[in-house]
């Protein structure tokens, strides 16, 4: 297997993630407490206030998907009575437990001291942690974040989330950690979050340039890594995003595109896409290469907004810490209603001057997938640009059919090409 060529920021991030895994797997020796929680509505700053390590089962499932372990784990869980119909993140996680719960660094994960059930934008989260709770019998803190059914949060929703933070989550974390909550500490951390968020947004918005110096989907999953996981609010994350910004700026100044896994640089960008939906992880490089081979670059994506919609203006705010956390949780992409998602994606197609919207529909993830065909149709109608629809899964290798995906992608790109030629002729 060839080694993927990475940008310097990717290597930096790799070190950071490895460091976090080492901290988690050595928690017994260091005496630190470990929580499990989710990417959307991730309360990393709050966990930091209590010195609790942040372990994210979704990220573990992704790691296992990219390392081609998830297929076996999923089958292990299905043998244990889990339906083939349900989310493969959950099954990959449960299957991993059945196989010794080994972290990517080869050491076993410690049992979590607390399950922080930050319940934002995905129904399955609730069942996932009920299932883990049955296994670990550890304290489980539910933070119910209401869905923005009418396209916006209401004062009642914000009050509800803030009240849960004050009366359930913070006391619960104090009890687990033995650390008293210090709101000034939270303010300091949130200020660092906001700083990194500024740089992230700057980077993501460079997708508006031609050529785009970033790939906002395949490359984008690297760019969002630290801020969506255990690093938001840390100095490390601030440094990472400073470095990332410099790296992207250098490419922008040089008129260069992003680096591809094979080491080449995608500067000759024939197609600009907005992508809706998470990527497939088991064939991530192959999937990316299918786009790159056609000269397609993703200029904006919704997946890079699951852990917060910073590009729409939200920043963590040290002046009003708890309300700010509540607003953060409420505003994550999958907690927004479908009309809002249509608005966002149609706006991306316009603002990023894309050729169209491509939907990668994920079998596991109904929160994303249910309604995507309507989203596509609406975005097509509003922008007048054709959409495309492909289907894969997160970490179930049985559900990635390269020939099928490639066939549709090619058809789509050729259609764009043909339409352009038709338009040129007419002009």
């Amino acid at each position, binding site marked *: 297997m060839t080694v993927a060529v990475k940008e310097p920021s990717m290597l930096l991030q790799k070190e950071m993630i490895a460091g976090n895994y080492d901290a988690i797997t050595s928690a017994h020796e260091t005496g630190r407490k470990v929580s499990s929680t989710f990417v959307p509505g991730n309360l990393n700053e709050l966990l930091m206030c209590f010195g609790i390590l942040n372990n994210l089962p979704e990220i573990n499932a992704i790691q296992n998907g990219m390392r081609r372990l998830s297929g076996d784990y999923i089958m292990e869980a299905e043998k244990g009575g889990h339906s083939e119909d349900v989310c493969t993140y959950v099954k990959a996680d449960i299957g991993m437990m059945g196989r010794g719960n080994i972290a990517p660094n080869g050491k076993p994960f410690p049992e979590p001291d607390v399950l922080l059930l930050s319940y934002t934008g995905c129904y399955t989260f609730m069942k996932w942690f009920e299932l883990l709770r049955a296994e670990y019998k550890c304290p489980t803190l539910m933070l119910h974040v209401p869905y923005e059914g009418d396209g916006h949060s209401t004062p009642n929703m914000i009050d509800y989330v803030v009240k849960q933070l004050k009366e359930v989550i913070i006391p619960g974390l104090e009890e687990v950690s033995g650390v008293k909550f210090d709101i000034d500490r939270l303010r300091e951390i949130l200020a660092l979050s906001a700083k990194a968020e500024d740089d992230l947004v700057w980077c993501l918005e460079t997708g508006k340039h031609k050529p785009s110096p970033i790939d906002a989907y395949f490359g984008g999953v690297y760019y969002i890594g630290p801020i969506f996981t255990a690093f938001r609010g840390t100095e490390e994350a601030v440094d990472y995003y400073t470095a990332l910004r410099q790296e992207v700026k250098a490419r922008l100044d040089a008129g260069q595109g992003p680096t591809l896994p094979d080491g080449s640089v995608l500067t000759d960008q024939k197609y600009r896409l907005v992508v809706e939906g998470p990527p497939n992880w088991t064939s991530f490089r192959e999937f990316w290469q299918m786009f790159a081979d056609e000269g397609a670059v993703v200029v904006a994506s919704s997946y890079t907004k699951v852990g917060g919609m910073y590009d729409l203006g939200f920043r963590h705010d040290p002046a009003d810490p708890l309300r700010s956390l509540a607003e953060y949780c409420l505003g994550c992409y999958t907690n927004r209603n479908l009309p809002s998602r249509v608005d966002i994606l149609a706006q991306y197609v316009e603002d990023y001057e894309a050729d169209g919207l491509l939907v990668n529909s994920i079998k596991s993830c109904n929160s994303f997938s249910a309604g995507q065909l309507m989203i596509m149709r609406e975005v097509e109608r509003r922008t007048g640009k054709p959409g495309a629809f492909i289907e894969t899964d997160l970490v179930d290798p049985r559900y990635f059919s390269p020939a099928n995906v*490639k066939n549709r992608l090619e*058809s789509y790109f050729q259609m764009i090409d043909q339409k352009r030629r038709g338009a040129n002729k007419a002009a």
Partner: protein
Amino acid sequence: MRCFIGIDLGSTTTKAVVMDDTCRVMGRGITNSRSNYDTAAAVAKQEALIDTRLTLFRNSLSAFPTLAGKVDDILADIERNFRHVQYLEKLEDLEQTCLENTGTPRLADVRAVARGVIATVFTRLREDSGDLFAPGVARKSDFFRDLAGGGFMHAAEAACKDAGLSFDLILNVYDKSIIAVENREPTATMESTFLRALEKSGAAGGGPEVAQVLKDTLAVPLEESYVVGTGYGRVRLPFPKEHIRSEILCHGLGAHMMFPGTRTVLDIGGQDTKGIQVDPNGIVENFQMNDRCAAGCGRYLGYIADEMSMGLHELGPMALKATKQVRINSTCTVFAGAELRNRLALGEKREDILAGLHRAIILRAISILSRAGGVQDEFTFTGGVAKNGAAVKELRALIKENYGDVTINIDPDSIYTGALGGATFAVRAVTQ
């Protein structure tokens, strides 16, 4: 003549269309897609070029007023003789290959006997070929394997018995040889085969003048100006990337070429179902295919035919005999068999169940059309399922119900839609 060729490499058959530089269809060819895609593409192309020659003959002959009304017969005679000569050439190749394959150690002791048997068999096959290709004889298949195979078995069994040789040994040799012969291109050029055919047919009795014209026509070179490949197997074609077009684009353009008023295309093939919208120039504006689940594709009917021990082509006619329609809920191919048996067990009639199954397939197709933006006038239906009367009947009813009065086009040769689009792309690539 400059030839622009489209090749559609499908999952079951491979089609080719030859066009001239004015987008006129000159010839079409079809063969079964075998494991070897290169050969399938080469054979389909060859067949289309043969058909092109016949078209050229037709054009030349139509200049003779004296031949008015006889051209069809003359061409039929030429083609019959061509097929006969081609068959003999392939027999020759097969015989040589069989003889070479007697060199195996297994046959060491009986090699001479085996060679004798093979010679006897092929002599017999050559003798019989006259009847096989006699005027007015309907051959059960156009594939060499089918034509030669039956005769070989018959003759070899008798010859082995006479020679006291194990039939299995000869059968082994045959199996090995036929695969090799099928998977290589013909040894003789098409032109030389045609020349032999023309001699054999005595230029179809048109006199020396006609014979000369046919020979002159044969001398017109068929230049392959541009080839475009499409279809599910297109990535396997040995073509540079710019010569490959997706089947969506080719289907859209092909449907436009057949029916220039086409705005919506439905194609139900073996593996997938496509809904395509095209603009007035045949340019694809939008498309949707069935999702990962292949429910409701042509393969579903194949599966049902197997379950009922019927031929695929018998399903439609039987469904048309239905007096009522049994509601079928599952278009899932995996569950279809169980549902079918369940309905039969409940005492439902086969034709009524089949009528329900056809409706179920078309309902799926209508959903895909709906996903692709609905149906606009005119609507063109292509693919293998377009030949099925029961499916067409349901489609007409559902289109009317959901989209009102829409012109529905079905071309009996719609199997060539993709290749036709490919050939048109080939013309456009050079001339535009």
